[in-house]
């Protein structure tokens, strides 16, 4: 199986590659359009800031490539937000694959970024197969994607937001499966099995 991790300026690529290696997969780390198009699975990781990441993707034509993919794609954290229509982070127009807007946590009494292990619930198959409701996953983010018809897991931190979304060939998770211990490993296994 050919698994490509998208190489760009906001990827936590080492962590994702390490976890895939532990699952017996040697990912190809690439920003080449043809390599992405001919892969079986694409993982789109991300930590960092939305507008600079989008600029980087557009400058290299990766926005067009990502929108054209038909095989299973998994966006992680910022990757999830970049798959959305837009983000409140520096008013960024994103890829528009998921019909949502990433919103800023209002703060108030809550610490922002939302950082640490939080429970998720309302879990749907097949991505969450084998995972019990109220399992903990590791989150680090200052923006969140609202809930909607395509939400396949929710998390509550002040607001209730989408912990995961599934739309057509796209899966997206707000938490970091590569940093979420055994449960996170299971999510990646489930994705690779799609």
């Amino acid at each position, binding site marked *: 199986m050919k698994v490509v991790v998208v190489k760009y300026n*906001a990827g*936590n690529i*080492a*962590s994702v590659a*390490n*976890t895939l*290696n*532990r699952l017996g997969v040697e990912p190809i780390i690439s920003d080449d359009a043809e390599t992405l198009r001919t892969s079986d699975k694409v993982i789109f990781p991300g*930590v*960092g*800031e939305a507008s600079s990441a989008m600029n980087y993707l557009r400058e290299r034509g990766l926005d067009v490539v990502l929108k054209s993919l038909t095989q299973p794609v998994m966006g992680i954290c910022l990757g999830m937000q970049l798959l959305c229509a837009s983000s409140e982070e520096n008013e960024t127009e994103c890829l528009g694959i998921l019909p949502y807007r990433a919103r800023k946590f209002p*703060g108030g009494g809550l*610490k*922002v*970024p*939302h*950082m*640490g*292990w*939080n*429970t998720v619930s309302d879990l749907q198959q097949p991505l969450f197969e084998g995972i019990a409701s109220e399992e*903990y996953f*590791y989150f*680090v*983010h*200052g923006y969140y994607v609202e809930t909607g018809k395509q939400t396949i897991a929710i998390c*509550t*931190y002040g607001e209730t937001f989408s912990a995961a979304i599934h739309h057509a060939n796209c899966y997206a998770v707000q938490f*970091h499966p*590569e*940093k*979420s*211990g*055994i449960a*996170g*490993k299971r999510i990646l296994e489930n994705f690779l099995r799609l």
Partner: protein
Amino acid sequence: MLAKRIIPCLDVKDGRTVKGTNFVGLRDAGDPVELAESYSAQGADELVFLDISATNDGRKTFAGLVGEIARKINIPFTVGGGISSAGDIGALLDVGADKVSINSAAVRQPALIEAAARNFGSQCVVLAVDAKRTSDGWRVYMNGGRIATELDAVAWIKRGVELGAGEILLTSMNADGTRDGFELELTREVSESVSVPIIASGGAGSMDDFADVLVRGKADAALAASVFHYGQIGIPELKSFLKMRGVEVRI
């Protein structure tokens, strides 16, 4: 619910884990890779790995260890010690660190916090502050506690957050290694002063100490070294204890 985090800390010198008291009197505490794997398996929520090597050879060994540990654990991993440029940060993230902890270099050059946040995102910038109680409040120390600065700890932390730090690792030098309990008042004051998470460090001796700093001290996470390294407190039993005390923890 968001869980409070329990974080073992590995101070590494020339490839070995060490631990002292009040920042001096180092003792060997084992192989860092073995300890990291064991803590990850026992349910640690995160690991902090600090390089206290004095030599360049020691630093190279450290970078190698960071990569080795990152390949073996699947929980968040913060590294620090001797970081003085955005280039240093990029190199550590490239070998698999998730966050970096900046201490003395941020005091000498506050713009480093800004540069780090801009280049890599606030979520990976941990401002580490070593504070010592003086007659006129809590003073920031640098160079592993060897050099006093003019900075007031709370004021410096507020500034650090404005510059882009995404988390604070607050160590009380007075409490460090004593096992007499965390510094509750300072931790609570800092936690209430800034909007980012606070990791309390220094002084863990009993399971009650952890409950105290997470509840009364309002810390988001508690970090300790010797009680874990020497087997005085096991992470699973600590988490069961905290849960019984009504603290949200990941079990």
